[in-house]
C-alpha cells in the first residue's frame, strides 16, 4: 500500500490516505446486517461469530500490532464472562452495566498483569502468558463455591436489553447486541491503530531495540495496549455470557486461547479485519462440521495451523493483499 503513493503527495495527504475508509470496508459493515434478512435462523451463530471476532480483535491489538505473543488471552475473555455471569446472579441482570463491570474487571486485571508482561519478551513471555492463563483456569476450577467449578455457573439470568428487547430464542437481540458492541469496539481499535500510539506499537513489533534508541518508552506502551486489549477481551467474554446465559470453565481454557490465535492467524494478524474474517470462516466451518467429534475437529485445526504457517505466513488477508499487488503490477 505504502509503496504505491504517487508523486506530489504531501506527507499529510499520505497519512490521511492510509486512514481513509475504503469502499470494501463500508460494504463489509453493511453486509453484517444481511443475516437478519437472509439467514434469520442462523442469528445465534452470527452472534457467536461477532463475539469471537471481537475477541480476535482484542488479540490482534497486542499480537498483530505490538508483536506480543500470548498463549493465555482467554484469561480476560473468561474474566469478562464470569464477571457478567456473577453480576447477573448476585446483583442484577441488566446487561449493559454487566458489560461495563466485565470491562472494568478485565481491564483491572489486565493492567495489573501488564506490569509482568511488559518485562518479558520471546520465550519467557510465551511461558508467562501460558502460565497466567492456566493459573486462572485452575483458580476458577478450585473456587467452585463461586464459579460452579466444572459444572459451570448456574442461575445466570439476563434482563431485556434496554429494558425492551428480550434475548429471544432466535438470537435476534443477541446478534443485534453483539454486532453493535463489535462495531463500536472496532471503531475504537481502528482509531487506535491509526493514531500515533498505533504507529508506536508497530514500531515495537518491528524493532524494539530501535524503539529505545529513538527514546520510546516501550514498557509503558506495552502496558497500555495490553490493558486496552484486556478490556476488549473482557467485553467479548461478557457478551458470550449474556447472550447464551451460561458460563462454563471452557471460557478460560487453553483451547480457547489457542482457538483465537488460530482464528487471527488464519485471517491475518495486524490487519484489523483479519480476526473478523478468521472468525467467520472458523465458526461457520465449525458449525458445518458440528456433527464430527470435537476431538477430530482439532485434527483439522492442527493441519490448518501447519498449513498457514508453512504456506500462508500472513494469513488469508495477507495472501489476498499479495495477490492483489501482483495483479495490479501485472496490469501496469
Amino acid at each position, binding site marked *: 500500500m*505504502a*509503496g504505491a*503513493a504517487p508523486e506530489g*503527495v504531501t*506527507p*499529510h495527504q*499520505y*497519512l*490521511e490516505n492510509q*486512514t481513509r475508509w475504503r469502499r470494501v470496508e463500508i460494504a463489509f459493515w453493511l453486509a453484517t446486517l444481511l443475516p437478519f434478512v437472509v439467514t434469520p435462523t442462523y442469528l445465534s451463530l452470527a452472534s457467536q461469530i461477532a463475539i469471537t471476532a471481537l475477541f480476535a480483535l482484542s488479540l490482534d491489538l497486542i499480537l498483530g500490532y505490538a508483536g506480543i505473543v500470548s498463549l493465555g488471552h482467554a484469561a480476560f475473555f473468561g474474566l469478562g464472562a464470569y464477571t457478567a455471569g456473577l453480576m447477573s446472579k448476585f446483583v442484577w441482570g441488566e446487561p449493559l452495566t454487566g458489560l461495563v463491570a466485565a470491562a472494568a474487571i478485565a481491564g483491572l486485571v489486565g493492567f495489573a498483569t501488564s506490569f509482568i508482561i511488559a518485562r518479558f519478551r520471546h520465550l519467557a513471555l510465551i511461558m508467562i502468558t501460558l502460565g497466567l492463563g492456566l493459573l486462572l483456569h485452575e483458580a476458577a476450577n478450585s473456587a467452585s463455591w463461586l464459579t460452579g467449578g466444572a459444572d459451570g455457573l448456574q442461575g445466570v439470568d439476563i434482563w431485556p436489553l434496554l429494558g425492551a428487547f428480550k434475548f429471544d430464542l432466535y438470537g435476534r437481540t443477541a446478534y443485534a447486541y453483539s454486532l453493535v458492541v463489535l462495531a463500536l469496539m472496532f471503531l475504537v481499535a481502528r*482509531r*487506535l491503530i*491509526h*493514531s*500515533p*500510539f*498505533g*504507529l*508506536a506499537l*508497530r*514500531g515495537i513489533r*518491528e*524493532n524494539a*531495540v*530501535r*524503539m*529505545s*534508541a*529513538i*527514546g*520510546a*518508552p*516501550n514498557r*509503558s*506502551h506495552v502496558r*497500555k495496549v495490553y490493558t*486496552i486489549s484486556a478490556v476488549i477481551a473482557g467485553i467479548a467474554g461478557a457478551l458470550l455470557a449474556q447472550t447464551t446465559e451460561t458460563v462454563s470453565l471452557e471460557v478460560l481454557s487453553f483451547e480457547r486461547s489457542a482457538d483465537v490465535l488460530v482464528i487471527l492467524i488464519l485471517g491475518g494478524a495486524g490487519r484489523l479485519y483479519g480476526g473478523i474474517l478468521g472468525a467467520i470462516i472458523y465458526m461457520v466451518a465449525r458449525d458445518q462440521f458440528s456433527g464430527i467429534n470435537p476431538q477430530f475437529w482439532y485434527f483439522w485445526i492442527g493441519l490448518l495451523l501447519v498449513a498457514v504457517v508453512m504456506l500462508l505466513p500472513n494469513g488469508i488477508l495477507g495472501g489476498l493483499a499479495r495477490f492483489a499487488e501482483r495483479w495490479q503490477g501485472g496490469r501496469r
Partner: protein
Amino acid sequence: MNGAALATRGLNKSFGSLVVAKDVELVLPHGVRYALIGPNGAGKTTLINLITGMLRPDTGRIFLGEDDITSLAPEARVRRGLARTFQINALFPQLSALEAVTLAVCERRGFAGVWWRGLPEYRDAADEAHAILASLLLGEHCYRLTHELSYGQQRLLEIALALATRPRVLLLDEPAAGVPRDESAELFAAISGLANDLTVLFIEHDMDIVFRFAARIIVMVSGGILVEGTPDEVAEDTRVREVYLGKAHHG
C-alpha cells in the same frame, strides 16, 4: 565537567575474560566532530553501547553535559539528547521511511502515547519528518517501505531516525559501512552539514574520510584509548603508526 557535551569516567567492561573497555576517559566538547578509529574488535561499538545504555558498564560513570546518566535507561538518555545509529541496520522493515521518522518525532514530542486521535492530525510532525528525510536526500523515497529501500538509503534512514530525536550528541557507528566510496563521501558531506552545536562522534575505517571530516580523532586499541588528538597529531604518533596505521598500510 566544564562544558563537555559528553564525558566518561573510568569506564570498564569485560565479556568474561575479554576486556572490551579499559578505563575509558572521554571528554567531548560541544560542537566538535570526532572520529573514533581502531582495528576491528577494538571495542568501538561496545563503547557506543555503553554510552547509550544498551550495555551496562562494570564500573565507571557517564556524563551528558552536567548530568550523570550512568543509571538511566537507554530511552531516557535519548530523551536527554543522546542519539546513536547502528553499525548493522536496525530499522523498522514494514514501516515506510516517513512513518518511521514521524514515529521518532512523535516520541520526542511526547504524544506517541495518544491513541484517541488520528495520526494525520499531527500534520507538523509529518512535515518535520519529511524535512529531515529531504535533508538527507530521502524526500522522494519517503513513502516506500523501509525494506524496499536500497542499502545506501537505509544507511541514511539510520541517521534520519537519530536526527529526529533532536540530539545534542550524536554517535554514528560506521555510518558508511557497506556504502560505495563515492556515496560515502556524500554521506559524510551531509553529516558535516549538520548544525554546528551538535557534537558528533563517528566510527569510520576510511582514513581519507576520517582526516577530511574529523576535527579530532580518538584511537582505540583492545578496549583502551591509545591516543586522542588532532588529525595531524594522530598521524604523527608513532604508537598509532605501529598498532594501527602501520597495519593498515601493510594490509
